[in-house]
């Protein structure tokens, strides 16, 4: 793999890219490990990588390291962020003392104690907000901030209170886009996004429990309507497996929007639909082929082959660090139609198409605005 690249231009581009990435990270002061800027190591592009836009391995390695470092930190931070009114009150009463800083070790112990002793609450869907903040959201935050550098637009379109249905495009082989949207909603609006997931999620060991504790539930109308009518913020990806498993050549082309079940759920509960367009998720795992026979054997809806997976094994499962844009559009208010409109198929289809068109148009305009796939 030490072959020198005869193509000097490609190598130069790659080096410049690495330098830009490092500068970007330093500018954001997000990473203490990188706060002392080193000369970007001379990038030796892998001979196997044909595309000049791919970030070199050295930069990727440092990113992985930095993210690993941050995960531990942010997990502790998240645990301390669990509502702790007592300590806040104490801070006001007493004179500031150097030891009064939140004791992360003790908070971690307290968290472990509550889990071991069963001293926590979950709702009927299995959602445990304290766990969601402490584990999945804090594990994903470094990925959100440093890896995909997600830029959120139109967060004010998400209602601060009450039920709303966020409808977004789906892509990227595994539903990283749903997770990043959940982090975006938590970061920007301090609300938990209740993700509607496929049945595959809920029959997979570990994943099913994690998903339920983090607030996800099955993408079925009874669940969606129950969550919406209790004032929750629900996220749905109506393209489902068709959207997430589509080949790279069809990127940013919206697939059929299910059967419009999400529209009838919103109509029945009278909540606004917030269209959400996600740019960047298509490039994390560019699907160049599918192995339907093996997928059927494994009971999966599709089995993606990317330029790196399964060729590079587990390393190929590292998502490419594309630059993400998530835009929340102005809410579409179906409440004027009334709940009986849910039984009018024409109206449901029309509204489904309107939501789909809005997302598709926003995707095109975001793609035009994007400087490059990775920056």
């Amino acid at each position, binding site marked *: 793999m030490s072959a020198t690249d005869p193509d000097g231009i490609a190598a130069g581009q790659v080096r410049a890219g690495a330098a830009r990435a490092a500068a970007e990270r330093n500018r954001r002061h997000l990473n203490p490990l990188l706060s002392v800027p080193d000369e970007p190591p001379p990038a030796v592009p892998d001979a196997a990588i044909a595309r000049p836009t791919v970030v070199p391995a050295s930069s990727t390695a440092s990113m992985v390291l930095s993210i690993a470092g941050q995960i531990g930190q942010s997990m502790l931070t998240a645990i301390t962020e669990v509502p702790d009114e007592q300590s806040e009150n104490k801070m006001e009463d007493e004179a500031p003392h150097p*030891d009064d800083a939140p004791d992360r070790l003790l908070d971690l112990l307290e968290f472990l*104690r509550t889990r071991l002793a*069963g001293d926590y609450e*979950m709702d009927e869907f299995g959602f445990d907000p304290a766990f969601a903040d402490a584990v999945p959201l804090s594990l994903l935050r470094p990925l959100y901030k440093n890896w995909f550098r997600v830029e959120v637009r139109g967060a004010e379109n998400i209602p601060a209170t009450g039920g709303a249905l966020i409808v977004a495009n789906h892509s990227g082989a595994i539903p990283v886009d749903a997770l990043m949207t959940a982090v975006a909603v938590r970061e920007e609006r301090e609300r938990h996004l209740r993700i509607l997931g496929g049945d595959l999620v809920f029959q997979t*060991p570990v994943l*099913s429990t994690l998903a339920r504790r983090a607030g996800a539930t099955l993408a*079925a109308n009874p669940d969606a309507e129950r969550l919406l009518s209790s004032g929750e913020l629900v996220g749905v990806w109506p393209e489902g497996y068709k959207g997430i498993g589509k080949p790279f050549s069809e990127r940013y082309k919206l697939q059929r929007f299910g059967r419009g079940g999400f529209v009838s759920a919103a109509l029945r509960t009278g909540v606004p639909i917030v269209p959400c367009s996600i740019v960047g998720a298509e490039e994390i795992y560019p699907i160049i082929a599918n192995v339907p026979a093996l997928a059927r054997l494994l009971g999966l809806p599709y089995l993606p082959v990317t330029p790196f997976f399964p060729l590079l094994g587990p390393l190929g499962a590292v998502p490419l660090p594309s630059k993400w844009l998530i835009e929340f559009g102005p809410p579409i208010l179906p409440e004027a139609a009334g709940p009986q409109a849910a039984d009018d198929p024409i109206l449901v289809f029309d509204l489904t198409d309107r939501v789909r068109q809005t997302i598709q148009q926003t995707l095109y305009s975001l793609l035009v605005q994007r400087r490059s796939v990775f920056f």
Partner: protein
Amino acid sequence: MSRSVLVTGVARYLGARFARLLAQEPGVDRVVGVDVIAPPYDIGAAEFVRADIRNSMIGRIIEQTGVDTVVHMSVIATPVSAGGRTAQKEINVIGTMQLLAACQRATRLRRLVVKSTSAVYGSSPRDPAMFTETLVGKHPPRTGWGKDSAEVEEYVRGFSRRRPEVEVVTLRPANIVGPGIRTSMTDYFSLPVIPGVLGFDPRLQFLHEDDALEAIRRATLGDAQGVINVAGDGVIGLGQAAGFAGRPTVGLPPRLAGLMGSVYHRGGLADFSPDQVRYLRFGRCLDTTRMREQLGLEPAYTTREAFLDFVRTRGLRGPLSPEVVNAVERKVVNWLRPPGSARATRTAEAQPRPPFPDTP
């Protein structure tokens, strides 16, 4: 109008308690309890008639006593208590058929109450998080009690069509726990190590036995009709429940879990059908809107409180009981932050922590 009520399954804990409770009701002047063996529990002022509901004897009893209400509580959950699966199925299915056949001839009958189970919904990853009474599970039970109950409900629907003037209530209670009742679930949580399915922490729902009795009482004396879910509010995770009972859990691969179920069954430790293993994998939760609206029942215990009451009254303790965990945490904190230091004072304020913060 004073009522006379026939209760089947009075030789078992819940049936006996219900017969005793009902006999004390002012509006009820006669309670006839029926079972194949004499009840080992006190049934109070209720009369006991030894009869097997699997034969036509039950028809003569209904005729002679002239009851206006029948409460069917003898759908048996475990083969062990019936003396084998064949006997269990016969009591559940043939017994119900005979009982309903007798009810169809009973001219004075006004009301039929059937205690079914929430197991009729089955458990699957494709089911919505909460079941309303109108939903049908994607994976209905295929064995044992759940299947029997589904068949019983089918016969009850048939009876309801043939005798439309008789009011029929079918109750679907969640797993009943409490100080006295013994079910496969209470046996399960009494095991020293609780076997679960690897990677799954299902949502469980419980109903306290007092609330279960109140639900049957309201169904018998009230005017509710149709199918009604009955459960305590909220859910708890299997891991959480095991923690309350102080038991460590061990995750088994799904196939092995099915095998373990039959091993436990043979060993008489706990009774686990494949449907129950599915329940321990995917969990289940009931929507109780109809319980509140039709029965007017506000359970005295939430799911969590019902389970904690079960743990407390049975004296379940183990290496992971909340008291033990809390004590260990306190020791670790004291070791990490010796008392007297500024940091220790903050944690000291939160102590002492009651072992069960929300025990009623």
